[in-house]
């Protein structure tokens, strides 16, 4: 589904991604871990199409389509979703109108008709229950004045509404208390099918207790220096990054 080869990216002349290779198949869950500043959010932003990041080398395909040639909105319509580490507050744009506009665009791209207000509200209600987000928040301005946890849950609500092929969750677990974490994880598990895939960026094993990854990758200084199965995350939690960086860079 997602095929990244030798991806290099820089911002303001500073090299951040230094050759990423990653292959994600339908039905899989991949976790990406790595220390602060290693390039995890950069990878997510480059895939989502943030203009500031220059791609200097490499390729990224989603189901055979060249992501890097598309505008951000086209990537979204093709089925890419990014749950932001820091969701943006947009005063005045009502959460519900925004969701309706986004869903209409994405459905149109898939050749589906616009939902009637009734159908839309029904869908929204179902998905809201999935992430246990209060209706009052749905009626407010987009993310404005939301708590950290509410913002993250709102990201998952959008994910649920837009039903992407590939969802990248950038530290969706940070700032969540254990109850919220369980809600988010169970939401993701319910949304999971054999036709979609998830890339979960996290610092903590905690989330991976609830969402069991098929693969774990360690991103360090712009490269994936180690990949493994879920045991790698446990090992990392136990031994820390030093263990792995000494180990890996020592052998280069």
């Amino acid at each position, binding site marked *: 589904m997602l095929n990244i080869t030798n991806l290099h990216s820089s911002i303001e002349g500073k090299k951040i991604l230094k050759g990423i290779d990653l292959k994600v198949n339908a039905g899989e869950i991949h976790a990406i871990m790595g220390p602060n500043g290693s390039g995890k959010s950069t990878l997510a932003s480059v895939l989502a199409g943030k203009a500031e990041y220059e791609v200097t080398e490499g390729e990224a395909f989603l189901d055979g389509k060249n992501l890097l040639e598309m505008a951000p909105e086209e990537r*979204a*319509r093709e089925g890419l979703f990014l749950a932001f580490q820091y969701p943006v507050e*947009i005063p005045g744009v009502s959460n519900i109108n925004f969701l309706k*506009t986004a869903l209409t665009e*994405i459905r149109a791209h898939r050749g589906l008709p616009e939902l009637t207000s009734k159908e839309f509200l029904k869908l929204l209600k179902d998905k809201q229950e999935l992430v246990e987000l209060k209706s009052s928040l749905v009626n407010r301005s987009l993310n404005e004045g939301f708590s950290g946890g509410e913002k993250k849950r709102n990201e998952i609500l*959008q994910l649920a509404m837009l039903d992407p092929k590939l969802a990248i969750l950038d530290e969706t677990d940070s700032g969540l208390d254990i109850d919220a974490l369980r809600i988010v994880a169970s939401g993701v598990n319910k949304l999971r099918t054999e036709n979609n895939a998830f890339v979960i960026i996290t610092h903590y094993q905690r989330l991976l207790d609830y969402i069991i990854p098929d693969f774990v990758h360690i991103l360090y200084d712009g490269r994936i220096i180690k990949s493994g199965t879920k045991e790698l995350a446990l090992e990392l939690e136990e031994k820390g990054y030093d263990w792995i960086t000494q180990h890996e860079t020592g052998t280069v």
Partner: protein
Amino acid sequence: MKQGLYNNFYRYLIDSFDKKQAALTYIESVNLTAKRNEAFSIFKEMGFPTRKYEEWKFTSLSAALKDELQLMIEHDHSLINTNRIHSLDAVHLVLVNGRFAPELSDALPEGITFYDTQATLAESRFADKISTLATEDDAPMLALNTAFFTEVSVLQIAAHAIVEKPVHVSHVFTVNDIAEFVPYRMLVIAEKHSEATIIETFHSDSLVHPLFVSYVCEQEVHESAVLHTHMINTLPENAYFVQHREVFQYRNSVLNNSNIALSDVTLLRNDLNFQLKDVGTETNLIGAYILTGDQHVDNHTLVDHQSPNCNTNEVYKGILLDTSHAVFNGKVFVRPDAQKTNAFQQNNNLLLSDQATVNSKPQLEIFADDVKCSHGSTIGQINEDALFYLQTRGIGEEAAKKLIMQSFIFDVILRIKIESLQDYVSDLLNKKLNTENLTVV
């Protein structure tokens, strides 16, 4: 030293004053004639304002003051779009080129009375009030209006009257085949303990020849009266509109005003002055503008806190595209007596073109010590992070930008409490945002 503009139109006006006055001798009171003469000499001396005048620093009228302008003489009422807002349940009063058109207007409900020009001039309590609230010194455009206005009407809300239904004063201007100048005015008196809503729209169908409107509105809001006022400009290109509004607020009165310019008007200048004459008043001012092409909108507001315990809240927001120009000058004076004043003022702009200009000047002058005042002025671009966020949800760049612009202005429109009016203004907003040539770089 003379700093005004003394062009052909100026000379035409100067030459026509005596003749015009001669025809009015038997209609007007001696008082009014005296005021006109005085105003005329001020205008004659000062000329049209130029950018050398402090209050006109950023607004030039020279392109508006065409040589071929003439005073409007003919008032043709036929074939007119009265700009009725169909979804709005309101009493419709139509003024065509400033003159009351009874055949196009609804009957007024109890508690509110309308006086046309003849009736106004016949009642000395009204006629003598003209130009006592707004005074002409140093204000040549106001003086011009006082000297030359032909139509004047009065809206009076009776003491203790609660007028539930809004009154929609629809100012419409006819499309004529010469360039015309229309000076007229209105007086609004909200008596003690009354409450009413006055929605004023300013409209003309598309214009081939320039239309220059000079409108003066004087308002008294008496003790404990509540007056909701709305000004909605839907004038087209080629319209030049200059308004002076002077409002006196008395003890515990409330005045709300919304000032909406989402039209294609070529030039709009508002001088909105609020004098807080007695304690405990509340003044809420909102404004919204989106300017395209080479539109020019200049809002000057002055809230003059002359008494203690008065509250002002002002929010103006605007978006500038193309080569447009917006001016916001918001003065708040807090006089020595005006202790416990609360005054909050804000002007936010989105400047979306390299060639557009904003001059935003909040001007707080505080002479009392126990007050709470704040003001803020921002000029920004579309937030890139917000734009990206919307795009990552499948919303196209253009649509996302419009959504951000819409939300920026909607924040103000949201404060219009009459739902159908809010919808009407939202439609104007969406129409403006969906004009074909609207592109954002």
